[in-house]
């Protein structure tokens, strides 16, 4: 087990080295971060030269990479080109909102989609299962930005008009007038979290349904019934334990990408998370910020891959890494 983890960690480090090269290279190719300055006739060429030198942009790409990665290895993601602040600080401020949003949406998804998927499998082709199938395919086929806009329109605009007061906010994380607080946070969080949860629920409920269906046809459930167990115990103990294995694995794998934030949803709701920051940084040519976020995602994905492997061994006794 320990040797497995060590091997896996070493392999992960190799993956991360390649990931850092790709991240650096691809972001560098996205354009010239000083293009705005260069197009401005009022800025002199020597000033541009000077700024290039400050950020190391006058050097070759390999040199720039080594300079960047040296900082990264020391825990310094560099300086923002646009905000004149350390990237660490800029990203740091965005982690909590992203974790809050993604955590909430995943929690809603799990609470709703897993029991529903299990119910759908047990009562296959019942009207509720068919309804679930209908909404799942609706969820699959809806682009999230469209769903987000509809939720904004219905719960942000119409509901506010109808109630005469603002129930849910459609942008930001807090309202300066209301003075913050938990209620204010929930009013801001609900719509973006719901958008994500609806789309994720479509995926997870289908996934859980098929995992449960696989298990329901197993011989060992018949054995359990033959012992004298009630249908309920057979489903909730013998079937569920097996049907959750793939879901737990999927969730652990998904966790890494989740924490990178939801670019579209955060942008539509102006949610101050990593996804919104990433889109913003990329459009504005704030390359060190974009690289920092991508690298963070890479590290998290690799880390949660490892976690998924270990969790898998924990939930499924047939897997062992000796």
């Amino acid at each position: 087990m320990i040797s497995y983890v060590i091997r896996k960690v070493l392999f992960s480090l190799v993956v991360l080295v390649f990931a850092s090269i790709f991240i650096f290279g691809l972001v560098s190719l996205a354009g010239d971060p000083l293009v705005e300055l260069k197009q401005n006739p009022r800025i002199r060429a020597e000033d541009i030269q000077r700024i290039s030198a400050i950020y190391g942009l006058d050097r070759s790409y390999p040199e720039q990479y080594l300079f960047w990665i040296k900082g990264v290895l020391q825990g310094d993601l560099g300086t923002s080109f646009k905000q004149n602040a350390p990237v660490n600080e800029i990203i740091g401020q965005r982690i909590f909102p992203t974790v809050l949003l993604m955590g909430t949406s995943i929690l809603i998804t799990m609470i709703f989609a897993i029991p529903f998927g299990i119910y759908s499998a047990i009562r296959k082709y019942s009207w509720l299962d068919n309804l679930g199938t209908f909404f799942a395919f609706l969820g699959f086929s809806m682009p999230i930005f469209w769903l987000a806009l509809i939720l904004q329109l219905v719960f942000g605009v119409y509901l506010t008009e109808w109630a005469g007061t603002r129930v849910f906010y459609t942008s930001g994380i807090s309202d300066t007038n209301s003075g913050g607080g938990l209620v204010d946070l929930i009013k801001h969080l609900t719509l973006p979290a719901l958008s994500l949860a609806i789309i994720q629920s479509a995926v997870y409920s289908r996934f859980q349904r098929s995992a449960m269906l696989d298990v329901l046809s197993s011989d060992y459930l018949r054995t359990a019934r033959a012992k004298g167990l009630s249908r309920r115990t057979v489903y909730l103990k013998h079937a569920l334990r097996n049907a959750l294995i793939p879901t737990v694995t999927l969730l652990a794998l998904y966790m890494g990408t989740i924490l990178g934030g939801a670019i579209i949803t955060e942008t539509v709701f102006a949610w101050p998370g990593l996804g919104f920051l990433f889109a913003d940084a990329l459009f504005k040519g704030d390359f060190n910020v974009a690289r920092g976020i991508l690298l963070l995602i890479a590290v998290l994905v690799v880390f949660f891959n490892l976690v998924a492997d270990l969790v898998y061994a924990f939930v499924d006794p047939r897997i062992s890494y000796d």
Partner: protein
Amino acid sequence: MLEVNNLKTHFKTQDGVVKAVDGVSFSLEPGETLGIVGESGSGKSVTALSLMQLNPSPPVSYPEGEILFEGQDLLKASEGRMQKIRGNDIAMIFQDPMTSLNPVFTVGDQIMEAIRIHQQVSKGEAKKRAIQVLRDVGIANPERRVDEYPHQYSGGMRQRAMIAMGLSCNPKVLIADEPTTALDVTIQAQILELMVDLQEKYGTAIVMITHDLGVVAQLADKVMVMYAGRAVEQGPTDDVFYDPMMPYTWSLLRSIPRLDTAGEVRLLPIKGTPPSLIFLPEGCNFNPRCPFVKDECLRIDPALERKKPGHSAACILSPEELENKKHRVDQELGVEG
């Protein structure tokens, strides 16, 4: 103790009603072994699952018949009552030990669960008993093995564990649905021997479902041959095997090699395949495949009738006619040299 009268188990499907079991009767006394023999799809397993009331419902229905267990009709018993009977009074072991144990619980947990549903005992006591039954079924080192998962057991050991689970509450009836089919031959013999030993020790009655005539010959006191959902021959094992009264039974016996007649009697495969249970042939169900078919067989659907004391068969041929025909076939292609 167990008496099944005219049991009918039907399944509603899109193509029509499948009469998987269509009027089967038998009885079982304590300590007795009944062998149910037949090809795949003859209704053996459905009969067994009917006894347990474990056929998938909705499609299943029981339009007629009764299953009397100690005087109580299980077809009319509530689900709650059945849960008390299953595992405790009537236990069942299944064909494929590789898939019949839950992979995520230890073998011990699964046996203890069976004990603790039916008996008010502490976890520690249940574990002691689980270890004891594992020892009874010949698992070496049961104290350690009890905490292992099914994937750490071999196929033969898993079937032993299944038997241990089945016997853990000391049931009156043990239904074994092809318990040795998935095992290799040496393990098969061990498992069968084990079942005989345990039957002597616990006095359990066994319903042995199999398509292996050798198993029945070895274990069963009496035998029921099933074809297309019906019992076509029933009687004491020796009678049925030495003097089969139904051409199907005779064909089955002639289709397997025997050591004592090797080289003398040619194997005679049964032609064709079992009929669809939705569209049964007119007359006798076996007539398309019967080597002794007569014109009447296409019209008359024979009922099970007594041919000798305790031995009944569903065939319009008289014992004498049948004897002649068997003899003729033997002369035509059987005896060599």
